[in-house]
């Protein structure tokens, strides 16, 4: 069903608007030609390009951003895990890391670690993470550039368009047709900010990334401690409980992205960048009929009682799609509200989708090859 407010209206116009993204995605996914080695590689590359561009086309033609974003986002997250874990098995023989890997500084830098290294980096001028500064997969300098660069551009949009963990949460929050728990206490939206302050200070006190050590549920789908003693056993148990609870069960029964909305300290950190980003979601009060559909649909509890998006909005587009009057809209700071809505929407979509295609797309291509080779 088309969203009449935002649908482009015809196929040709949608194709023309998709063309720039086609060129961008083909350029970025080719990785400078490296992705086009053999015939099989080229076919996989073209398939990935097709998937991403069909989704983008449907966003424009149907006028529904969130639905098609979520399909690609969730698929990308799962395929990223396949690719990542396969890389680790090729490199180390296992998805677990031991003391030897930590001492060799061979741990890929995850973006969530940023929240824990900031204070020691400022005071002690060192990075308290056993990774590589320049070499290897997900080096510290590369992730630093990508995280800060994309956060300045999109703000917390990173959480809905770039984070390869968020797709898991997003996926499980869409499985059920109706929520079992219909009302989630909106105060929990601030829990991730409490987590941010505590994790940042605790990690600074111990000079170790404690959230990664003890609390990150996504280690289950990437890499985790090898179980060698009681402590590592406990860490793995906590990881499984948190993944099942925050990423699977609670999103299933509430239809909210519980891990992202309430627990992830990086989400709270990214929210601060919403103050800098030129893009945001705004409620045009002249069109708002106060039906509350936006607030009920928001997966991150990011809309307040006055139906205004808060600092923790991740610009996923769900409220924009849900709004019956078009009051909720993508907006560019410094421009009049309610004018050139489609322009603002497109100007946001292009960089956001570029991030998704480039950051996770390479892993998606790799994962498709791995799956094909399995058969």
């Amino acid at each position, binding site marked *: 069903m088309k969203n009449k407010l935002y649908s482009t209206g015809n196929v040709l116009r949608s194709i023309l608007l998709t063309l720039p993204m086609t060129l961008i995605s083909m350029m*970025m996914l080719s990785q400078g030609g490296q992705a086009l080695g053999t015939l099989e590689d080229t076919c996989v590359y073209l398939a990935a390009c097709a998937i991403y561009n069909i989704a983008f086309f449907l966003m424009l033609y149907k006028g529904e951003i969130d639905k098609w974003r979520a399909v690609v986002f969730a698929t990308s997250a799962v395929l990223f895990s396949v690719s990542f874990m396969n890389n680790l098995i090729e490199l180390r023989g296992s998805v677990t890391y031991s003391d030897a890997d930590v001492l060799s500084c061979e741990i890929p830098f995850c973006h969530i670690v940023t929240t824990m290294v900031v204070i020691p980096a*400022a005071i*002690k001028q060192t990075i308290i993470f056993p*990774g590589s500064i320049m070499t290897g997969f997900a080096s510290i*300098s590369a992730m630093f550039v990508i995280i800060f660069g994309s956060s300045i551009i999109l703000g917390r949009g990173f959480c809905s368009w770039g984070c390869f963990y968020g797709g898991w949460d997003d996926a499980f929050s869409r499985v059920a047709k109706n929520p079992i728990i219909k009302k989630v206490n909106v105060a929990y939206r601030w829990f991730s900010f409490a987590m941010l302050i505590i994790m940042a200070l605790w990690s*600074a006190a111990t*000079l170790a990334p404690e959230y990664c050590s003890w609390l990150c549920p996504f280690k289950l789908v990437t890499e985790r401690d090898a179980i060698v003693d009681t402590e590592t056993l406990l860490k793995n148990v906590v990881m499984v409980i948190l993944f099942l609870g925050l990423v699977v069960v609670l999103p299933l029964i509430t239809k909210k992205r519980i891990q992202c909305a309430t627990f992830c300290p990086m989400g709270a950190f990214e929210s601060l960048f919403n103050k800098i980003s030129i893009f945001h979601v705004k409620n045009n009060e002249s069109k708002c009929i106060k039906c509350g559909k936006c607030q009920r649909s928001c997966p991150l509890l990011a809309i307040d009682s006055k139906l205004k998006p808060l600092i923790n909005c991740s610009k996923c587009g769900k409220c924009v799609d849900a709004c019956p009057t078009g009051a909720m809209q993508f907006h560019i700071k410094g421009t009049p509200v309610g004018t050139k809505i489609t322009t603002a929407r497109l100007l946001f979509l292009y960089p956001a989708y570029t991030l998704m295609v*480039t950051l996770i797309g390479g892993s998606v291509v790799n994962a498709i090859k791995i799956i094909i080779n399995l058969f």
Partner: protein
Amino acid sequence: MKYISYSIAATMTIMMMLIFINLDGWMQMAAQLPFMKIDPTITGGEVVDSIVSDNYKLWIHEGVHPGLFEDKSRTITQIDIEGDYYGKVTVNGKQYELNATSHDVKVNGEEYAASFKRKNGWTLRIE
């Protein structure tokens, strides 16, 4: 004002692409930042002495002071061992008896020592 805003927004796609197209260049610049080095409590610090033989190799690192502000009352010295080593080693003016094989490592006379198995040997951290 609105034209400036639309212009800035329009350049964001190109900026996003440039992050990844010129990633190597940005990485080189980021690596020059003053905090872009791994904390010595993780790496063990610079190697100040080494003992090399046919059967073993020993690297003794400089002592590092743990803590957010480098608490100088504590010093942790890392020793990396490859191969089988039986003998004495002097660290921070104290002598330690080391017995290291591929299966086990023992440090005698230490107040506190942690041992970590590596691919080809052991890493000891003596406090």
